[in-house]
Structures are given as C-alpha cells and as structure tokens.
C-alpha cells in the first residue's frame, strides 16, 4: 500500500491517521505506566520493609544535582509543549528552536546523571562486592535498629540504578526521537495540516518527565530532615 504525501495507504483521511497515531501513542504510554509500575512496586515493598536503610541511602544522593535535574527536565517539557504549539500555529522556525532547546535540556539532564553515577562508583555505592557505606553516613542508632543495614542499603542502590537507569534509557530514546523530529522540522515537513509526529513525540517526552517527577521524591527525598 503506498503513501500519498503524508497520508499512509491504510488510512482513509489525514484526520483518521492523526486519531490513530495519537491513540496509539497514548496506549503505548499506558504500557509504560505498567512497565515502570512493576519496579515501583518493588520499591514500595522494599521501602516498607527497610525504611531506615532507604533513608540512609537516599541521603547519600546529591540533593542539589537532583533538584537541578528536576528543574531541567520540567523546563524541557515546557519547551516540548511550545514546540507542539509552534507546529499547530504553523511557526516553522519556532518548531526547530523549541525542539533544539528540548534536546539540549535533555542532554544536560543526562550529563548530570553521568556525573552522579560516576560519584556513586567513586564512593563505593554500587551494589556488589565493592559496596561499602561510608561510616559517617551511618548514624549509630540506625545501625542498632537494623543489623543488616548494609545489605538493605544495597537494595536501595539496586533500585536507584535500576529505576534511574531505565529512565535514562527512555530519555536516550527520546533524544533520538527529538533528533529525528529536528531533521524533519529543518526540512519544513511539519505544517498546520500535518504535525502528528511532533504531537506524538511530545506525549512520549512528557511521560518520561512524569516518571522523573515521581522518581525524584521517592529516591532523593527520604528522611532528609534527619541530622547527619
């Protein structure tokens, strides 16, 4: 079945194509909710079982970098929404500008994550044989309430890497999609009649932002009020 301009052969109208594409992306995002959901359940069960260890683990994370990254990602959602608006309003140059800004902000986020991961490796906070909690981060009463504190803290870090790693993977895919959109935008492919790809990638990008909106407090903000 062949394609006429932007209309693929299996569809009768551009409107039907747009309807199907956006519904398809929403349904895909629902699968992503359940996909991340399994790990969120694992997190919930483990945090409920080992609250002290999770608190200690959380406090070793860099709050400044985490908050900064949250701000960066939220801003990138704003620029993405603006890119979609520009495509709806037919402002071709602005589409390119906002897509580029989104990609840059996404890049900053990933760069900060690389820094954070490197810090974890340096400080022996990667689960495995070389894992070791710095003694200054383990208050005496915590060690008293949980004799297996280090083992349980490793569970926290396993989840930290699994959850942020999975999230980062999704961001990389998103970056790839943005690059693809940029190419199309530079070629002037997106018009008021046909802006479906921008809309659909936008939905994906916002979803990845929402995952981080939950990851940030769940990983970075446990027991922050406690001294030490």
């Amino acid at each position, binding site marked *: *079945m062949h394609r006429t301009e932007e209309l693929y*052969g*299996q*569809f*009768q109208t551009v409107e*039907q194509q747009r*309807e*199907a594409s956006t*519904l*398809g992306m929403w*349904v*895909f995002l*629902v*699968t*992503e909710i*359940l*996909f*991340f*959901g*399994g*790990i969120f*359940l*694992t997190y919930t*069960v*483990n945090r409920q*079982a*080992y609250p002290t260890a999770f608190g200690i683990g959380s406090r070793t994370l860099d709050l400044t970098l985490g908050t900064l990254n949250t701000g960066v990602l939220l801003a990138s959602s704003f620029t993405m929404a603006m890119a979609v608006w520009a495509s709806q309003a037919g402002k071709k140059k602005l589409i390119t500008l906002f897509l580029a800004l989104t990609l840059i902000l996404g890049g900053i986020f990933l760069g900060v994550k690389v820094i954070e991961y490197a810090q974890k490796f340096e400080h022996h906070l990667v*689960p*495995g044989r070389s894992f070791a909690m710095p003694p200054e981060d383990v208050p005496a009463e915590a060690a008293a309430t949980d004799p*297996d504190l280090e*083992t*349980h803290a*490793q*569970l926290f870090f*396993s*989840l930290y890497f*699994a959850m942020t790693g999975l999230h980062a993977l999704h961001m990389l895919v998103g970056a790839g999609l943005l690059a693809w959109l940029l190419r199309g935008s530079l070629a002037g492919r997106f018009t008021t009649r046909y802006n479906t790809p921008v809309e659909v990638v936008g939905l994906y990008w916002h979803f990845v932002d929402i995952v981080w909106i939950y990851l940030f407090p769940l990983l970075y903000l446990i027991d922050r009020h406690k001294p030490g």
Partner: protein
Amino acid sequence: MLTAAGSDATLPAEHYLNAKYGLRSWLLTTDHKRIALLYLGSVTLFFFIGGAFAVMIRLHLLTPEGYLVSPEAYNKLFTMHGVAMIFFFLIPAIPAVLGNFLIPLMIGAKDLAFPKINLLSWYLYVTGGTFVLVSFLTGGLDTGWTFYTPLSSVYSNSAVAPAVIGIFINGFSSILTGLNFLVTVHTMRAPGMTWFRLPMFVWTHYATSIIMILGTPVVATTLALAGMERLFHLGFFNPALGGDPILFQHLFWFYSHPAVYIMILPAMGVVSEIIPTFARKPLFGYRVMAAASLAIAVIGFLVWAHHMFVAGQSTYAALAFSLLTMIVAIPSAIKTFNWAATLYKGSISYDTPMLYGLGFIGLFLIGGLTGLFLGTLGTDIHVHDTYFVVAHFHYIMVGGAVMGYVGGLHYWWPKISGRLYNEFLARISAVILFVGFNLTFFPQFILGYLGMPRRYHTYPPEFQVLNVLSTAGASILGLGYLLPMIYLVYSMRYGKVAGPNPWPATGLEWRTASPPPTENFDVTPEVTWEPYDFGNRPDLGLDLPKSAPQQGPDLAPAHGDD
C-alpha cells in the same frame, strides 16, 4: 453437509498470495494477511518443539522410576515444554495468525492501523524465539516456566539469561500486537460498522488486546529484574540479600494469570463465529457476550494470587483472591450458556469446524469447573502442585484454546488459501484429537486427586496404570495434530476451489474473494446489517424461515468520539 455456495468457483486472478513473488516480498511485507502466514509458520515450529518435549515427558513417565532421563534433565523437559508452548505458541497463535488475518477484513479496513509495527511484532517474536532456542541448545532451562526465584535468579545452573531475554523481547511482540488491534478497532471500522455490529471474534480480540497492553509490561519488568539479579548479584528476590521471593511471584502472576485469558478469549471468539454459522442462528445474547468478554479481561486481573495460596501470603489476601476467583468464573459460564442457547433449535450440521467448536464447549466446561476446586482455598491445599492442576490447565489450554485454534484454522482455511480441505479426513482427525486428548488428560485429574505431584521425575508405583493410559492417549493426540498438517498443506495445491463463502457465513470477510486481494475489498464496504442475521440473508442460499430483521441503528459514522 450443505452444498458449498459457489462450488463451481474459480480462484481470483490476483490475490494477496500471488500479488508479489520472492523472499523479500514476504520478509518485508506489511500486508496483515502475509504477516499472519509468517506467524503461522513460526508458531507451528514452536508447537512442534513444545510437542517434542511433551513426547519425552510422557515417555519418561511410563515407568515409576523414570527410565528416560536424569532428574535434572526431566526438570528441563517440563520447563522447556511450558516456555515454548505458552510464550511462543498459545499466547500468539490465535491473535497473531487468525486475528491478524481477519480483523481488518471483519471490520472492512484495508489493513491494521500500523502495518509496519505489525511486521516489527513478528520480527520481535522471531528474535525472542531465537534467544530462547539458544537457551534450549546451550544447557536448557530447569526453573519451571514460572521462573520462581531464587532458583532462577541465583541457584539454577541452566541457561536462564538467554531465555529471560528472549521472553522479554517476545513480550513486546505481544504488546505491539495488542496495541495495533486496539487502535484498529477504535479508528479503522468501515462506515456503518458500529461497535454492536462487530463480530464477536473482534470483541474477544479487543478484550485480549486490553490484557496484552496492561499485563505484559509487568512480566517484562519482572523478568528484567530477575535477570539483573542473576547477572549482577542484586537482591530483589533473594532472601539471603534481604529480598523477597514472594514479591517475584506477585509480579509474575500479575501478568501470567491474565495471560491465560489472552490464551482463551481469542478461542472463545473463534467458537462464537463457528457455532452460529453451523447452527444457522444468530449468536444468542450478543451484547451479553461482548460484556462478558470485557468482564473476563478486567476481573481476570484481580485474581492472580490464587496461584500463591500455599506460598506464604497473608490469609486475608488469600481469602480476597479466592472470592474474586469465584467471580471471574461467572462471565465464562455465561458464555457457555449462550453457546448452548445458540445451538438450541438451530439447524445444525457437523462440519469439521463445528466438531472443534462443540469439542471446545465440552472440554472448556470441564476445565473451567475444575478451576473452581483450585480456586477454593481448602481444596487447593490438597490439589496444589499435583496433576490435578496440570489436567485443569491442559483441558482449558489444549481442550479449549488449541481446539479453538485448529477449529478456526479449518473454518477460515478456505478464505486464507482459497481452497477446501478433505472433509472426511478432517472429521476423522477431529474425533481422533478429541479421543486422544481425553485419554491423555482425564487420568491426570485422578492422579492429581490421588496425590501425584507435578514436576517430579518419579512417582509411586500404584500410579503407573493411569500414567500409561495418559501416554497412550498422547500418541493418539499427536496423530490428531499431525493429520491436519498434512491434509491442510495438501489442500493448498490440490483442494477444491472454495469460492468467497463456502459455509456460508455472514461476516464481512466472506463478502470478498477467497483468497482476498491485497487491499481486502475492491470497494470499501458500507455496513447496514446486524451480525449473524441468517434469517435475513437470502443471498446465502439457505432455506430458512424468514425471521424478523434484527433491529439495529442506521448507517452511522464508523468512528468518532469513541
């Protein structure tokens, strides 16, 4: 048997099979009908592989001490049998073969919403299957298809990692198929094809798609976590590292219970097409059947921990799951009553697809009723992990789903291939299959009730007679599967030309040529009739008393704000 309408028919000059030639035209096709045939080949291969393991299991169990393989090898046999059959045959078979082929035809569309994603689905299946075959060939798998931790994530010495990767990838094949179907049914229906004019086959596949979309991602994550645990020595499910094996079970069964509804709902859809056609009566209780399909999909997500009654969960949770399990049986029972009501006072003929349909109803009934014994907390303690469970799920999966699949293949074979198979051979095959099946699995109910555990390579000597009966039955069952493969393939070349509507039946798919053209319909159909309206279709050549036309809405836009 009714004379096939159009018995002097000839094959159409151009259709989807001869439109293009060459390997590339098949491996790079986006035609849903060709993709369905690609799947047909692949799932048949895995059916053979799973079947080979079954043969070895049944041979091994001929004697109480088990003479064929070592205990470790036995563990691998039942594991690989389960993995091949469940993930690579039962889950994809009807949706990816029949669903793919028929859904666009049934709704009057040219193809699915996303044809390239459809092809991607097949490649993901093949890639996942390859990883699993690598696992089978490089040490096998001995964890049970359920991959319980910490055996699978820590202690097993078998090839767990490639298997888990393969099933993970295959999961996305399933997810994308479900996504494609869901969007297609919502947005691609022909003018006049309103929701309540859809064939029940489409409704059940819609319900199946909901399950695929909501459930499969969870098992993907679960296997990924278990795989990471194995590869990086993490502790999510390992008690020695503070982890919880029961968490794995919750996550695993959250998908794997709804998965059984992925396996049975499409077969129910097939039966809902076959019974009306060979009773020449509309499906009884159409709207209730549609609602029951959705109810099965939804309630099916609320019962998973009935697989974990003896695992160590809280008694109160177990009680809740047991009650919900009783409730999920209700929509299935409603469907069974409605099929029976469809048959009542129908003008019945015993063509091969009907034999499979009737067989389905009886065997699904037995399988379903025995599920109630398992869902009841008290009796489950006695029969859990025995052959009672094995018999229960084989009655549903083989007696139900596989019969539905084979029956569906026969029913739509004329549409797919343009030709008719040998009816005499086919009816004999169906009977052989039915007899072989019952001989194989009924003794297993008794064995389980008497206490024979599952997944054991030996058993007490007093159980030998029943085991021998079961193995004998398996050989007959095998013959019942082999025969259709032979005569169906033979018919592709030498079978009588079928014409567009040989049975005849009422769906849209029967209003186009057999085999259909690549774009399905020469003109986009406009639907003004109700489904299964046999009484008002003089064009079908059936000698039925004219019935009051079924009431339905006028020509309406096919899709809009729904």
